[in-house]
């Protein structure tokens, strides 16, 4: 067969629009997913069952249902239950963010629980409140241990953004599909999409390695 990347390059502007869409949903889901995950993770760690039980239900529900189904559900089912339409971006962001929150909650919980109880003792003996000990003593140490797992989450979120194409949100895969169907060049179009993903993600991974090294200064 003959490769026809020319027809892909002709559509560079469409791919740029797609890349912008991918970056936008990635940024939203990264911030929402990882910060909501922290809240849920702290909830899972809580001894108060009115916090613990809902957090656990949340985690189990979103961990054990497919993101794609969640996105489709938010897009098609939610507007039937609630009196407003929901945009493709909102539906996809909700699905991906809540799913990421559930997974990262487990990372946070495990990271926090891995810190020796002596650290809590040291903090409490100085007169710190729970929140102060968590913010100043426990989380900084836990984050360091969690960084590799959280990086994986970020990468996963980036790739999950392609699922937004299922509700016709304009992102890289959606634009790839468009180019492929207009020019009958699926191999080249999807190859280009894959290459663009790699170009975005590889530096992200390198950055996380750099962060890990920096955080090891105190060792």
């Amino acid at each position: 067969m003959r490769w026809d990347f020319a027809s892909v390059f002709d559509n560079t502007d469409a791919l740029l629009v797609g890349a912008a869409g991918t970056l936008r949903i990635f940024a939203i889901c990264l911030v929402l997913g990882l910060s909501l995950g922290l809240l849920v993770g702290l909830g899972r760690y809580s001894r108060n069952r009115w916090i613990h039980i809902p957090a656990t239900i949340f985690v189990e529900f979103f961990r054990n249902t497919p993101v794609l189904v969640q996105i489709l559900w938010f897009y098609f089912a939610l507007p039937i239950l609630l009196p407003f339409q929901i945009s493709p971006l909102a539906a996809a962001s909700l699905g991906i963010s809540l799913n990421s929150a559930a997974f990262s909650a487990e990372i946070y919980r495990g990271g926090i629980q891995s810190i020796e109880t002596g650290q809590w003792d040291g903090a409490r003996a100085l007169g710190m409140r729970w929140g102060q000990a968590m913010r100043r003593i426990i989380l900084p140490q836990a984050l360091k241990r969690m960084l590799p797992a959280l990086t994986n989450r970020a990468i996963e979120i980036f790739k999950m953004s392609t699922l937004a194409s299922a509700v016709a949100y304009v992102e890289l895969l959606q634009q790839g599909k468009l180019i492929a169907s207009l020019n009958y060049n699926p191999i080249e179009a999807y190859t280009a999409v894959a290459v663009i993903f790699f170009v975005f993600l590889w530096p992200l991974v390198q950055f996380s390695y750099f962060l890990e090294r920096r955080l090891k200064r105190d060792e």
Partner: protein
Amino acid sequence: MTILNVTGLTKRFGATDVLRGIDLDVQRGERIAILGASGSGKSTLLRCLNFMERPGGGTIALDGQVLGREGKAGERVYREAELIQVRQRVGMVFQQFNLFPHMTAIGNVMEGLRTVRGMPKPEAEARARKELARVGLAEKAETYPAHLSGGQKQRVAIARALAMDPEMLLFDEPTSALDPELVGEVLNVILALAKEGRTMLLVTHELGFAYHVATRVIFLADGAIHEQGTPDEVLKNPKKERTRAFLASHKQFSF
């Protein structure tokens, strides 16, 4: 003048009674060494005094002020805010140091001043340097705990407790986790604090040190005070059989 008054203190872990009614008065300036076999409840007693463990029963009064209030079933209920006040007044040094590994030595010493007291950074830093100098570690201020020896770590931990201006210090086996050659430097720091007239309670296995530094020695057995008195009385002329047996087992290999 009594700083601490403990009456009928009990604590139980599961089905085990760790403390079975401890009565203890601590005067300002007293230095009390608490001895006892492992499992006698000495660490638990110490940890109850600054509420790292919640006492099961009995009362603790600091400066005449009985802590907590009576709950519905007659138990004592403590507010977290009250306990936080107590912990600032009663400093603690741990067997395992519990330094914060992500902070330098001076960062560790400043932490309570900054986070708990809200002291401005320059002021907290100056105070922390003073405390580090007091324990002989001024030149290690910027060093992370991972690069300090055990003895140095424990001295930083002592500086960290001192920075909060505690009225009383609790030492929970401060030298038990140290290599023998590092014990001396920590004991010297504690000795210097004793000479300043600080009030301290010290759980230790260093009988010789207890003899020299303590004003009173308490021997715990089965969660109760079995014998107490001056170091001479308890360590040289113990009256009770169990105290004698404990001391004998500790002196077995001395010469």
